[in-house]
């Protein structure tokens, strides 16, 4: 809404630093998918969503809502929430530590502002988003509901229950995105369980489908704007977002191996060197 592409790139770069520092500090967590979705979440919270981070309310009346269904990419979620004003960035240092609000997978349980549902067990977030979207319709609230899903996640059957429901009931205030990085824990999607023609599948299920390059800020902004313009037309909107797992850190790209593995000291130094400070570390 007010940031230049350069500013959004700088924001993303700082988020990348947060991600690798967070998972390095506790030697656990999921950097790969987090790095792949960094530009998307940056654009979402810096440009797309209308929200009030300073007085977080669970119901989010009048605000756009975002549900992270692939909860394992919590590092990018927490970094973007903190840097968007939901809580102090210093709290990122508590990630995965005893007593933290920044649990390994996001939860409402400790009252972390910005989180409205627990996620981690995959496949549930689209259904939750549909429920929230229906509540908005009943409340006459014109704001939108967004959700993000992993490509591996959509192997879960519940996703397709939700897909049928949303199209069949014209839940057209919902914009869902799939992080199509082609990788899951055990390897390439096509080796583990091929998804086939994703676009054709979602279109056949009755969704309006868009595609975008999730690591290209200009493309994300353009496609998200288009997605918004397609709401209210009787169909839920699906964005198939191509990303590179581990994007922005050379040794983490082109492999599924960094899905859930933290860098060691040397690797951290290299990752940070590739992503110099922009907004200041937590």
């Amino acid at each position, binding site marked *: 809404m007010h940031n230049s592409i350069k500013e959004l790139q700088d924001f993303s770069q700082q988020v990348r630093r947060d991600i690798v520092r967070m998972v390095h500090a506790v030697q656990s967590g999921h950097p790969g998918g987090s790095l792949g979705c960094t530009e998307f979440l940056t654009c979402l919270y810096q440009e797309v969503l209308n929200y009030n981070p300073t007085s977080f309310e669970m119901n989010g009346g009048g605000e756009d809502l975002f549900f992270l269904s692939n909860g394992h990419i919590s590092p990018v979620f927490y970094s973007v929430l903190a840097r968007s004003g939901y809580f102090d960035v210093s709290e990122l240092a508590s990630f995965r530590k005893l007593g933290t609000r920044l649990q390994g997978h996001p*939860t409402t349980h400790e009252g972390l502002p910005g989180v409205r549902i*627990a996620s981690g067990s995959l496949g549930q977030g689209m*259904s939750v988003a549909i429920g929230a*979207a*229906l509540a908005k319709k009943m409340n006459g609230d014109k704001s939108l509901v967004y959700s993000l899903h992993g490509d591996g996640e959509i192997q879960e059957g*519940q996703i397709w229950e*939700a897909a049928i429901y949303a199209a069949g009931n014209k839940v057209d205030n919902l914009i869902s995105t799939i992080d199509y990085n082609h990788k899951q824990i055990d390897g390439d999607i096509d080796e583990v369980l091929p998804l086939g023609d994703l676009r054709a599948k979602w279109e056949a299920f009755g969704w309006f489908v868009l595609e975008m390059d999730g690591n290209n800020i200009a493309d994300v902004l353009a496609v998200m704007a288009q997605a918004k313009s397609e709401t209210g037309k009787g169909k839920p909107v699906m964005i198939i977002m191509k990303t590179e797992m581990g994007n922005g850190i050379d040794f983490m790209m082109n492999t599924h191996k960094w899905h859930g593995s933290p860098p060691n000291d040397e690797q951290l130094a290299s990752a940070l060197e590739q992503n110099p400070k922009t907004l200041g570390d937590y």
Partner: protein
Amino acid sequence: MKEYPVLGTKDTRSGFGDGLTELGKTNEKVVALCADLTGSLKMGDFKAQNPDRFFQVGIAEANMISMAAGLTIGGYIPFTGTFANFSTSRVYDQIRQSVAYSDKNVKICASHAGLTLGEDGATHQVLEDIGMMKMLPGMTVINPCDYNQTKAATIAIAEHVGPVYLRFGRPKVPIFISEDTPFVIGEALHLQEGSDVTIFATGHLVWKSLEAAKELEAQGISVEVINIHTIKPLDKNAVIASVQKTKCVVTAEEHQMAGGLGESIAQILATNCPAPMELVAVNDSFGESATPDQLMEKYGLGTKDVIAAVQKVLKRK
């Protein structure tokens, strides 16, 4: 002994349906979701009177539970309706993560629980649901005993903030709780005062326990009958007070012995006031197809089984 005249005969699911219909008129935040069992759950009147607050989700229970969690974000009080098996074991992870761990104000309303579902057989006769639900932190678990109590419970849970599992059944059973009996979540209902033994009963076994108490009274045995409609949170004080008086206990429920009401009572006894105890429940078995009465007899959930359990526990005093 206090007399409990039979006020009529109705299924507890109709108590749920009528309670929901009333909520439709009195609480605009109440919404209902159903997975293709509107008639079986008696949700038709709510649907007809509140079409904008009724969501038919089709045969997709996982989606229903998580959708219900989403509907609470926006201020609604969702009541989900399907058979008890599909309300619990089929969607346990959705309930655990999207509802219980996320602390969402969802009311999971489950019909056709237990053996009294009858001829459809073991695939549908869930006998593990109370156990699954009571293990979830923060979950309230309620199993009312007749039409009036189910209706009152349905209305009461709308006022309770937090996830609730409400379990009821298919067969027509005697109505014996008066319409004006208040339903207080977590508060045991004393039906008979007695001094020799306490029966803690829930669901369809409450009426059978009252019948058993009558027969035992004729044999000179003074039986205290306490209706535990809320299995979690359990009315610990009521349990302890009664056991301190009678010194022995029988529990009665249409559920597996493992995970049921009896197990919860045993935990209280073992840690507070150890006493001889017998459990009337299904003993590590699936059900099968037959009439409800035949099944309750075969699996040891009849009035005579409650009587036998009392006689046995008295000898252990």
